[in-house]
């Protein structure tokens, strides 16, 4: 960071159009390749940011920081959600040039946008556009007309690239407008806090949306059957999910190795299935 600020005094690091294009291409090609239950698109997002980050952070430590930052849980609909990598590109640009955006601002932005854009995007892309295009083209295909397939492929691809491209570069421009003007450190501190508020609010909701740990355990004796999950729901719906997240969070904070935790989870999952908990 220190080095960056010196650099800035000499010259600003600017993203080139080609960096953005590369980033967009990676986004469209690979962002859902390594979708995992654990973090969904996290790796895809990080990958798509590489052309940006490589340009902005010549220093290896800064680069490592930035890459790690973008390995966090992420999920959105890829076309409308392309706004997010675009916008983050511009925030990283400002950051590389010395504005002191904390991780909270960046994470808050990602978290605050990913949910709504997934909702909007899934509804429009999969619910509307896909269905309409299919409705037309399937009709043709059923009659044996192969143009149905071709038209669908062409139009759908055009839609995806068109919307994705527009959103990605709008995101960049929007971010540019909003973030490049902020230099007052007190405003940045304010922004950091507000993004923290947004991020934490949505995080409370993400647990209910992405984690759904449920037990199928029952206790039976004679005619009496007790469903443990029903009792737990009475205490607090989603208590297992939120409890697990906080236990894991505590472990991570105590620097327990994440790989170890994952191993334990796998063991718990399989053992749990074996003894009839899951």
């Amino acid at each position, binding site marked *: 960071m220190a080095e960056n600020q010196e650099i800035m005094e000499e010259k600003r690091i600017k993203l080139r159009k080609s960096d953005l294009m590369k980033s967009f291409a990676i986004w469209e090609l690979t962002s859902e390749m390594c979708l995992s239950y654990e973090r969904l698109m996290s790796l895809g997002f990080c990958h798509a940011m590489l052309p940006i980050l490589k340009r902005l952070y010549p220093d290896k430590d800064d680069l490592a920081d930035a890459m790690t930052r973008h390995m966090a849980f992420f999920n959105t609909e890829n076309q409308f959600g392309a706004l997010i990598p675009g916008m983050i590109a511009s925030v990283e640009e400002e950051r590389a040039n010395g504005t002191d955006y904390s991780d909270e601002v960046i994470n808050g932005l990602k978290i605050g946008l990913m949910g709504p854009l997934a909702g909007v995007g899934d509804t429009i892309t999969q619910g509307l556009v896909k269905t309409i295009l299919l409705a037309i083209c*399937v009709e043709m295909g059923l009659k044996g007309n192969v143009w149905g397939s071709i038209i669908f492929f062409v139009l759908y691809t055009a839609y995806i690239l068109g919307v994705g491209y527009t959103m990605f570069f709008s995101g960049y421009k929007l971010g540019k407008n909003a973030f490049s003007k902020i230099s007052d450190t007190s405003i940045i501190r304010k922004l950091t806090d507000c993004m923290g508020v947004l991020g934490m609010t949505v995080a409370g909701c993400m647990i209910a949306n*992405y984690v759904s740990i449920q037990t199928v355990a029952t206790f039976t004796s004679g005619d009496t059957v007790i469903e443990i999950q029903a009792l737990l729901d009475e205490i607090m719906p989603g208590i297992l999910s939120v409890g697990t997240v906080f236990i894991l969070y505590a*472990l991570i904070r105590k620097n327990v190795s994440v790989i170890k935790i994952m191993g334990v989870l796998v063991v718990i999952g399989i053992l749990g*299935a074996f003894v009839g908990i899951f």
Partner: protein
Amino acid sequence: MLQAVLVALCTWVCASGIEFTCWSIQLCSPIIFGPIVGAIMGNMELGLQIGCATQLVYMGNIMVGGVGSVDYPMAGCVATALAVATGAAPEMGVTIAVSFGLFGMLAESGKMTLCSIFVHRADKCAARADTKGITFYNVVCPQIINFFFYFIPAFLAVRFGAEYLTDLLDALPEVILTGLEAVGMLLPALGIAMLMKAIFNLKFLPYFIIGYVLSSYLELGMIAVSLVGVAFALMYWFSYREPENSEEV
């Protein structure tokens, strides 16, 4: 033999997860791969019709957060190939597709479980700024899984008939399948916990609690909670005052 390889290849491509050649991960649609597989098996038109008929069944399928109700590579490619091979009527083809679509969801969830490993490897790459590593784990590795989970089963099914797959499935004890599901249910907790590490701030715990109550008790979705989050953030913004002397808490 060649046919089997080609169909397996199609299945693999279809499962690759390239966004714009199909729709999005594992959603490569039967309407596109139906005729291709049909052509490979020697009857493009029948393939097309089976593909479209299959598509019709899943018209309302929406994939949210990586979870859909059908796996297209299996339902589209493999099922079509088998149906064309036996010269089945399109309706029959759809029946085969539905059962393969369900079978494929197993492949899918297995993949999403295993991919966690690559993500953790990638974490290490990120920590040492190894950009090549990221690419490797994001692009190459999942395709290896796809090879085992899609190419091999598809090849076997087309080469030796569907019963091979069914046998494979029967060989896995029930408890392993449930166990894998359980792991898939536990893993997101780790992802969110790591996210929490990045953003947790005691000062903002109240907002977390409210977000949680809104979503789990009042069943508000992400969009609604984000709106409330924005409202809170704005309130915070407008009522913000510089800390008096030093940072509190």
